[in-house]
Structures are given as C-alpha cells and as structure tokens.
C-alpha cells in the first residue's frame, strides 16, 4: 500500500498520458504522488529528458545504470520496475541477475563497465569522486557529453530511489532477488557520508566538465532563475553542456520548489539545507543558507540548521520535519511508513509530508549532481561548517564521535570570543579593548547608515553604550563584529526615526528600480589617481559615497571601504549574497558616474 492517499487525475493529465505511451502503463511511483500533480510533472520532465529521450549513451546502457544503482541501494521497487524494462528491451533473466549480483564483468565491454562502476561510486560515495575519475572515463573513450549524461542519470537514479523509499509505492512486477549488501557501515545506504582525504579534496577542484557560455537572453530558464533568485547559481551554469537536460531540470526544480500550496519555501529550503549538511555537501549548504537569508531567515538560524537543526529556534514541528527528511535522505533503510503518522500528529497534511519526501529526493539529486560535476561554490559555507564537517553529520563515519548537540557558538572560533566572555562577566577593560578594536568599523557603518560623519561620531557613544547594555544577550551565534554592526544599525535607525526622514536601509531583496545603464562613456586616464593629491581623491570619494542612496552606501562602505568580504557584508546586513552584489554594483556604477568628470581623459580637471 502506498503511504499517501491517491487522487484520481484526469485521463488527459499529460505526464500520465506520456508514460502510458512510452511504457504502456503509469508506474506506481508516480501514482503515489497524485496529491501534488505538479511534482509528478517534475519527475516526468526529468524522466523523459534523461531516460526516455535519445541521448549520448544508449538506452540499454542507461537502463543498466538505473538498475545497478537501484540494486546497490537495495531498492526493491526500482529494481523490479527496471528489471522489467530491461527485459522488455531484450535482456535475458540471466543477464539481469548478473547485473543485480554486481558481477557483470564477463558480459559487458570494459568501457561500459568502467562507466557503470563510476555511476555506482557516485551514488554510493559522492564526495570521493574526483577529476581523476572523469579523466579515466575519457580515457575509456567517453566524450564529455556522455559523461555528463552518466552523472545526470545517476543523480536521477538517486532521486527515484529516495522517492521510492519515502513513498512506499507498491511493486507492479514480481520482486527480484537482491544480493545481500556488504556495507562498511551496517544499515547505512547514504552515499555521501564519508569524507575524502585532504589530498583527494585537493584534486577535486572543479568543474570537471566544460560548461559553454549560455546567455540568459538566449536561454529562458536562466532569465527566469535570475529573476526569481537574483542570480544564476553555478549549479546551473555548470550544466550547459546539455541544455536539453538542464532545461528539464530547471523546470522540474521550479515545479517542486516555488509553489507554496503545501510546504512554505522556507520549510523546503530548510529541508534542502539540513539534508545537504547531513550529506556533507558544502556547496549546497552554502547555497541554501543564502537562499534562506534571502527569504528572511536570520543568518545565524540558517547556520545553526546547517550544523544541528535541533538547536535552532525553528518550531518543534519543523524540527521533526527535518528529522524526517534527514533520515529519508541519508538512512533510507531506517525509514518506514511509521514516520509519516508522527508528522501528521504534529499537524502536517499529507500533501505537505509528500512534498517533504519529494524535496528530500530533489536534494539528493542535486547533491549527487554537484559532487559528480565538481561544481564550484558561489558562496562561502557557514562559518565552521567546512572545518567541522566530520562531526556535524550524525551519519558520517566520524573520527571524532559527535557528542550531544552541536552549537554554532562552539564551532565559530571568533577571535574575539575570549574578550567577549570577559566583558560579559563584567570586565570593563575587556569591553574597552573590544570597542577600540572595532571602532573604525562601527564608525563607518554609522556614517553609511546616517549619511553624515558628524552624526556618526555623535552616535558612536550611543552604539557603544547599547553594546555594553546588551552584551549579556549576545550568544556567540555570529561573529562579535557582526553583532556590533547590528547594534549600530539599531542605534542609527532610532536616530533616523527621530529625524523622521527614514531613508530605506533595507527594503526589498532585489530592487530593480532606476537606470543602471552608464551615461558617462568617455575613456578614463591611464593613471587617474595621479591627477589629484591623495587628500583630494579622498574628499572626492567621501562626497560621492555620501551622495549614494542609503542602501547602496552601506554596502559600498562595508565592501569597498572597510574591505570586508561580500559574504561578511551579507551577514552583517542580513541580506543574501546576491542582494549584496546587486547593491554593490549599483553603488559602484553610481560612483563611477560621479568620478567620471574628474578622471575622464582630455577633460579639464574640476577641483573636487
């Protein structure tokens, strides 16, 4: 019995019609998702693009990969289904049994065997995949497109197996005998659990395959994601070798993640974050931390979910949802239908739980793809994640045994931690040292927020007093300097409110107002700095910065004047990295316009 209620869908429901045409029936795995037809559409898109459509590797080879991955993951549903399909493609029962037993050496050409082994390794232990594995496939004669397709197909196989574990779909054909699995870790099927050694990690610099330039103007899915997310993640940019697969994937991702008719986007991003963290996938962890910040979740909350969601401030029901997803995503053999009523008891609907399963499956698809292609990060992972990965995942073969809860505060390693502890214990000297150390940052933040150096100097005292008053409440879940900036921000906002001309510091994540297009297009001098004295330049720049709208001024001040990293600026201002980048570009272009009359070649110099 399928775990989730079935709903009769219209005969013309396109994905079902397509399966009837290609397979002669609609697999139970899809029928088990009728509560949310859009997730069936998503799976059908992937399935038709990577499995059914003619690609770089033959259909037979693809089916062998799907079956082998399913067998390796002890997935009875997919094994029974895929065996039937291989049999309809002409494979004998003996040949199928060979594949299931994993001893297909005799029957397959060496190249195909190498590819199969690669796919199994990717499914089983994705972090161990390196550029050398890709080179080995090339040496066997595989072209880059075929390798891409093999990686994509493996990710899809992982998607199906995760779904099958979470949906409890009925077998439509007789079960096949599976060889008992010999595992390093009993009961654990999770593919992403073990960490590569340091020297292996060094080889893992990606991306492993070329990614031809694809413009958002020519390729609509890029334009759509740019609009919805403010940027095109490397995750998608690295898959341009096969625009057909990429397009199907992006449509599927949109169908699963964007609507909010079941789970909210924040809940879905939390699932993606928690399961990626358990899979030790730094790329996806950094991505989802940022997307969550863009959705309004405070950065320290996202960071805490990445290291241990139990210690976050999420509602208890959401923590249970994440437990459910992490178990399904990393330890599917432990997952059972009994996990579903537990969530129902906490108030989740069947639709929401079904979506939780699908999002977990999508996460494992994405984690596998990222590791298989060696996709380079867009953002830094949360502080402490990389160094502490080994004991963050309950699933990892941890050299250090994880003991109890993992608190963000214990792994942050802020250089100020000791002074902060002393200041919290009431030592004024420690507080004084902290304040002196960060006074430049605070001053610049205040100038940027208030738009006026004199006011900023005046406000510093208030900010420091406020910091002392509240330091007891600082929990160390962010860097102390980040916390100081937020204290300064409150001080500035109070003053702005009193002034009654609150310039918006933070409205809208991705603002598009205003013309970004450059007006001044005269070439600049080769060495513009040499035309004025240092102090003239400084006055000019300061004047230009003070003229910027507040939200751009703050970003330019922290990034270009204080020279913090984009990631740090994003944390301090509680913005996503893409939002910071948009504001930074706008601010810089405005400054360029401002400076142009002074530095453009062949112009009479105007004094600042």
């Amino acid at each position, binding site marked *: 019995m399928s775990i989730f209620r079935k709903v009769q869908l219209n005969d013309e429901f396109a994905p079902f019609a397509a399966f009837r045409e290609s397979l002669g029936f609609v697999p139970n795995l899809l029928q088990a998702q009728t509560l949310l037809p859009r997730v069936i559409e998503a799976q059908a898109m992937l399935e038709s693009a990577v499995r059914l459509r003619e690609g770089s590797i033959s259909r037979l080879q693809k089916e062998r990969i799907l079956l082998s991955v399913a067998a390796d993951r002890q997935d009875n549903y997919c094994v029974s289904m895929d065996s039937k399909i291989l049999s309809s493609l002409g494979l004998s029962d003996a040949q199928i049994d060979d594949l299931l037993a994993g001893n297909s050496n005799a029957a397959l050409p060496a190249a195909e065997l190498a590819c199969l082994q690669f796919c199994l390794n990717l499914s089983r232990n994705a972090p161990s995949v390196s550029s050398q594995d890709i080179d080995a496939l090339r040496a066997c004669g595989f072209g880059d497109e075929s390798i891409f397709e093999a990686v994509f197909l493996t990710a899809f196989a992982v998607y199906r197996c995760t779904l099958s574990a979470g949906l409890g779909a009925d077998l439509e054909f007789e079960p096949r005998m599976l060889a008992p699995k010999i595992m390093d870790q009993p009961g654990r099927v999770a593919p992403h659990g073990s960490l590569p050694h340091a020297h292996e990690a060094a080889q893992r610099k990606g*991306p492993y395959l*070329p*990614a*031809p*330039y694809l*413009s*958002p*103007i020519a390729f609509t899915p890029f334009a759509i994601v*740019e609009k919805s997310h403010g940027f095109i993640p*490397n995750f998608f*940019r*690295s898959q341009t070798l096969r625009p057909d697969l990429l397009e199907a994937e992006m449509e599927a991702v949109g169908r699963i993640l964007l609507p909010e008719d079941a789970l909210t986007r924040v809940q879905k991003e939390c699932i993606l974050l928690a399961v990626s963290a358990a899979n030790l996938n730094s790329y996806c962890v950094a991505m989802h931390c940022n997307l969550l910040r863009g959705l309004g979740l405070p950065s320290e909350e996202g960071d805490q979910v990445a290291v241990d969601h139990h210690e976050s401030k999420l509602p208890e029901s959401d923590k249970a949802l994440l437990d459910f997803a992490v178990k399904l995503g990393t330890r599917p053999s432990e997952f059972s239908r009994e996990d579903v009523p537990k969530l129902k008891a906490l108030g989740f609907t069947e639709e929401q739980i079904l979506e939780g399963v699908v999002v977990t499956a999508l996460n494992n698809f994405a984690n596998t793809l990222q590791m298989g292609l060696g996709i*380079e990060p867009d953002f830094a992972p949360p502080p402490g994640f990389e160094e502490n990965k080994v004991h963050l995942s309950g699933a990892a073969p941890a050299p250090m045994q994880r003991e109890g809860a993992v608190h963000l505060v214990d792994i942050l390693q802020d250089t100020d931690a000791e002074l902060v502890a002393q200041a919290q214990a009431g030592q*004024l000297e420690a*507080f*004084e040292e902290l*304040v*002196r150390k960060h*006074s*430049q940052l605070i*001053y*610049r933040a205040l*100038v940027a927020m208030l738009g006026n*150096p004199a006011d900023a*100097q005046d406000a*510093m*005292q208030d900010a*420091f*007093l406020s910091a*002392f008053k509240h330091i007891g409440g600082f929990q160390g879940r962010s860097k102390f300097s980040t916390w100081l900036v937020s204290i300064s921000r409150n001080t500035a906002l109070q003053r702005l409110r009193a002034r009654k001309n609150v310039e918006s510091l933070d409205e809208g994540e991705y603002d598009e107002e205003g013309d*970004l*297009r*450059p007006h*001044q*297009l*005269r*070439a*600049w001098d080769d060495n*513009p*700095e040499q035309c004025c004295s240092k102090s003239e*330049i*400084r006055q000019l*720049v*300061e004047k230009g*910065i003070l003229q910027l709208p507040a939200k751009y001024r703050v970003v*330019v*001040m922290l990034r*270009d*004047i204080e020279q913090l990293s*984009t990631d740090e600026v994003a944390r301090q201002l509680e913005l996503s990295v893409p939002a910071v*980048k*948009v504001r930074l*570009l706008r601010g*810089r*272009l405005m*400054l*360029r316009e401002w*400076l142009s009359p002074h*530095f*453009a070649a062949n112009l009479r110099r105007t004094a600042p």
Partner: protein
Amino acid sequence: MITCEEFFAEFADYLENQVSPEVRKELELHLAECRACHVLYDSSCKTVKIVTESRSFELPQDVTGPIVDRVIEKLRTERG
C-alpha cells in the same frame, strides 16, 4: 559574439573576478570589439581601485580615543 546586454548581465561578477573561464572568454571577446563596454569596464575597475585605496572615512585615533574614554568613564561611574 555576445551582445552588450549579455555582457552587462555578467558585469558584476566579472568585476569581482568571479566568472568561469568560458564566460570570461566570451566577455573578453566582446571587450575587444566593443568600445563602449571597454570604457565601462576600464573605468569601473579604476573606480573600485580608487575607492578601495582612498582610505575614506578613516577616523583618527585622537578622535576615537576620547569617544571610547567617555563611554568607559560613563560606565564606570554608573557602576559606582
């Protein structure tokens, strides 16, 4: 060759030196051909350099020192 609009879509990341080799190649091909985008890129790089090296809004020690002193003094008095 890519259009100016496409060039501009990648501009922020290009300025931050955060584009893939494939994208970089396209952008550089465009820069070699398009004077307007070349001027924009060149002057934007110079803007960033001038701004980051300007040491703007640097508060001298003789200004911060007394502010911190006053704060600490105030806290000390409050404590009694």
